[in-house]
């Protein structure tokens, strides 16, 4: 890493650590859920370290407990992860030039928050002139900094939850802390009318469609929010949200 790349990487770490409490809280909640499931200690640790997808992990726990076959749980993982398929379009526009192994690794490590903060800072893909000048891959190092910070904070929360789950009483209602922690991420994003309309739509659809399997309510909420967001968006084309 050159010093410029190192600096971009460190800035990425800092950007993500501003959201540290939210990530720790979600990690903790997920860790506790895994420890209280049918998984053993080491299975829970392995799932935390390798799968690195909180919503998919939580969705898999009741299915594992019910003894469903592996392929059914994997289909569920795919369905629950559909939002990432949409996000990968955004990453593709920025990073299609990288070698294949880097693209897969970069994609795998880009969870919700990394993608969110990345597109907030780089809403449009680089022009061809910018791409020519991009010999230092600073955007990639910035994203990698966020990923490393996100992964580390998530594992600290999650492993703490796995190890101490049985010392934490259910009566604390800690699951709800994860929900509150998301408020601090979402509220600053509601800075324009179109974002507020999109948010209200997403919330309403997510609730109406809550009964659907595979957490398809998330996908429907995204599609509905895109339609309403585009209709209500008055900002000039190409400007960031």
């Amino acid at each position, binding site marked *: 890493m050159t010093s410029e790349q190192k600096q971009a990487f460190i800035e990425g770490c800092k950007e993500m650590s501003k959201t540290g*409490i939210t990530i720790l809280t979600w990690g903790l909640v997920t860790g506790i859920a895994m420890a209280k499931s049918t998984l053993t200690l080491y*299975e829970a640790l392995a799932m935390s370290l390798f799968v690195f997808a909180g919503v998919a992990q939580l969705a898999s726990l009741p299915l594992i407990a019910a003894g469903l076959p592996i392929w059914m749980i994997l289909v569920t993982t795919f369905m629950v992860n559909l939002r990432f398929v949409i996000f990968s379009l955004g990453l593709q526009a920025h990073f299609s030039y990288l070698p294949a192994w880097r693209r897969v690794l970069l994609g795998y490590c880009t969870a919700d928050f990394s993608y*969110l903060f990345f597109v907030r800072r780089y*809403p*449009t*893909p680089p022009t061809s002139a910018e791409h020519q000048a991009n010999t230092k891959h600073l955007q990639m190092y910035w994203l990698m900094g966020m990923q490393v910070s996100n992964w580390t904070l998530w594992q600290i929360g999650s492993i703490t939850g796995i190890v101490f789950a049985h010392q934490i009483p259910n009566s604390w209602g800690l699951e709800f802390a994860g929900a509150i922690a998301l408020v*601090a991420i*979402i509220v600053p994003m509601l800075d324009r009318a179109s974002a507020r309309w999109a948010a209200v739509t*997403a919330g309403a659809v997510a609730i109406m469609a809550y009964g659907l399997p595979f957490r398809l309510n998330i996908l429907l909420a995204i599609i509905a929010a895109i339609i309403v967001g*585009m209709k209500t968006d008055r900002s000039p084309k190409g400007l960031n949200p």
Partner: protein
Amino acid sequence: MSTIDLNSHILWLILGMTLVTAWTRSFFLILGERVRVPAWLLEAIRFAPLAAMIAILVPEIFIPAGATSISEFNLKLPNIWGGIAAVITFYFTKKMLSTLIIGMAVFTAARFLL
């Protein structure tokens, strides 16, 4: 839970979930330069991360734990009051920690009072 008893069935599952997650997260990225994402599509998906967060959060607040639909909604749900308190606190303080503390305090109070 203290001995190392890794069930091979579960290990295959964990490996599979890891690969599926890597696959979904790099779904279009894998295609590399063979695909050009049109500008209108990039415009459209700007709203996707916000909507995903909302779709994960809102049911946690408005739907009781274990319920499967909104029909089980009622105002005695402590989540709603905790959620409202958290939004208000964050709006005024812009601080994560105070949002978490006040949100949880109101949530806990509502659980005992309602």
